[in-house]
């Protein structure tokens, strides 16, 4: 549909001189943004205004003002089709990987449709496409967490399957592990199986902070004794041969020795970390040693 914008006087976009950090805009940008901001000032909520925000977002997706204005417009349009709005959003998301206005906007639209009326499965393809491009995209994972929470998807097999697949593809994808922690520990019933699951993943790749943080995270959250992990830690070190396949095993062992009041062994672990297996944190390991000695 063609719209007539000839009656709108565009606002000036930072024309005053001298000016610091002045952007010399292209004529196209000046025209689109100038008219868009002018319409916004007049609080015009119309289809032509909506179209102008589409053009504006194509120019610059991170222009938050355009998104706010667009939301005000659709709130004021009768019989607006929120589903087609979600479809349009998807294209913008794919073209703008790092953008995050769009995910907040998407939440607003879904809220508008109503949580009782919306099938969250509809969000799967776009999230999958986005995480395919960047498997650690923080905005997309945050959105996914919001979705799980709002639609109470803690028991969703599909969701567990998805996050397991992501971990299968890259066991060092920390975003996936964080999502899993949120998903699985809504209650206590998964604790045992998750401990087994993460231990398996640690054996697959022992030098991985994500999995060790997950494991220790479970023990802390549910108040379990990490001394139970002693035998498991020894799978990754042979101290007689001075062979270590995970610095995190050394560290966990140090914590276990402290609980067992075996100060000497704990200090030995921290010293190995400090001198050989993790020297960038030498000051931190020294600090740990000092807390044992005092």
């Amino acid at each position: 549909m063609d719209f007539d914008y000839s009656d709108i006087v565009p606002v000036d976009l930072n024309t005053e001189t001298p000016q610091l950090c002045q952007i010399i805009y292209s004529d196209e940008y000046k025209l689109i943004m100038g008219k868009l901001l002018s319409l916004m000032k007049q609080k015009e909520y119309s289809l032509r205004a909506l179209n102008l925000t589409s053009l504006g977002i194509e120019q610059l997706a991170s222009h938050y003002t355009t998104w706010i204005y667009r939301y005000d417009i659709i709130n004021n349009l009768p019989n607006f089709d929120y589903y087609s709005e979600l479809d349009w959003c998807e294209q913008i998301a794919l073209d703008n990987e790092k953008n995050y206005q769009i995910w907040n906007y998407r939440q607003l639209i879904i809220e508008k449709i109503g949580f009782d009326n919306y099938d969250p499965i509809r969000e799967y393809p776009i999230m999958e496409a986005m995480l395919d491009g960047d498997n650690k995209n923080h905005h997309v994972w945050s959105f996914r967490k919001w979705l799980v929470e709002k639609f109470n998807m803690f028991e969703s097999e599909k969701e567990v399957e998805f996050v397991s697949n992501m971990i299968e593809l890259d066991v060092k994808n920390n975003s996936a592990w964080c999502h899993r922690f949120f998903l699985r520990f809504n209650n206590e019933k998964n604790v045992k199986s998750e401990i087994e699951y993460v231990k398996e993943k640690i054996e697959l790749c022992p030098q991985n902070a994500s999995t060790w943080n997950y494991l220790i995270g479970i023990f802390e959250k549910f108040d379990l004794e990490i001394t139970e992990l002693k035998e498991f830690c020894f799978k990754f070190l042979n101290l007689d041969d001075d062979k270590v396949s995970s610095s995190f095993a050394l560290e966990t062992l140090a914590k276990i020795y402290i609980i067992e009041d075996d100060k000497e062994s704990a200090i030995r672990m921290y010293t190995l970390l400090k001198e050989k297996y993790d020297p960038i944190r030498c000051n931190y390991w020294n600090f740990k040693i000092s807390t044992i000695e005092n």
Partner: protein
Amino acid sequence: MSNNSKRNQKLKDINYIIKLLGRKRYPIITEMTSTEISNKSNWKPYNPPIKDTYTSLTTVSQDEFHKVLSDEYSQIENMKFYKDIHVDYLNVALNSKYPSGFKSLDANHTWMIYWLVNSLVLLKSEITKDTKVLVRDKIESCIIDDGIHGISGGRNQIGHVASAYAAILSLILIEEYELLNRIKDNLYNWFMSLKTDYGFRMHEHGESDTRSIYCVLIISTLLNIKTEELMSGVIENLKCCQTFEGGFGNVENCEAHGGYTYCGIASFLILLKSKNAVKHSINFDSLLYWSVSRQGNYEGGFNGRTNKLVDSCYSFWIGGTIPILESIEENKLFQNDGLKNYILTCCQNDINGGFIDKPGRKVDFYHTNYALSGLSIIENEYVLNENESDDCLAFGFDVSDGLNELDIGCIHPVFAIPIEKVNECKEFFYGND
């Protein structure tokens, strides 16, 4: 315009574009003013003797990154700091007209001013009277109805809390207190209009997270407009944002991240009055562990999340927490030399000035400011006093003698502008209390 002058203009244009964008290091040796670092660094890139046979996207990009870093580290014998070149870069950036591609920064006008002016002040470069007037003009163009509707990221745009943060810090950097005094009560009402039960929306219909909370806390503390009503529910919400890993996420149950962790811990120093209170409000040990874990054995610099690549902006987002965590724990915890090596050797553009995220990238204002802010943190020594009379623990930071061989200003770890600017501002807004 004659053809000749047109051509000269064009050449000038091209020159500043090249300067702004930066370019890859040339293997040309030219004499430049630089500060050579006198004391030998006792840090070297190091690969721990742990064999990792697993392969995935993460390990491949990590390995490639190490190769690039190994090139950078092998080229340079001694670290150098090209202060004058950075000052030139910043002045050019501040006073140039940018080509149309810079429209990507069109919602970030107040941020551009903050990044550039803060960097200049850190480098102890004088901000002239004329420049101060232009800074004020630019920021004023983003203040909506004297602050009634907040401060935006650009003229005619809508109020945004993070844009307001950058705007207020810029005005404090140029000591524009009269203007700040005029708008502060309106800003307070604007914040109240964005308040939710537990935080603040970034803007109308916007998201609320640790970042929006940090920005509101910083502005309202500096301008002395904090009230109990404004703060209600905030601290409980922040506590929920600490994750099982130890760092903070944007909202509850999201992945811990350097930027949000900085916002989280800095906020506690605004909300609380003693080190002990901070230590016991959160899981301090796990925060400590997560924070020191951001530093790479081979890289020296910080990443922002577990199993991600190092990026110079975390030199401040994580670096800023160094004085905070070390003062509270009263112990040395981080390896500053590694960070200094990463910033100066891998991220410095020594031809045209400015800093990059990681080798291969282009310079930008954002990374320049946060790399310099990180350098400032490790070059200066801090003390954190608990003063009964202070409104919050954050005001207790002071600089003590550091080695500071780069002769760089001393950034405040919580307010993210030089300490003397914070103190001047405090004197103005709290002086008569």
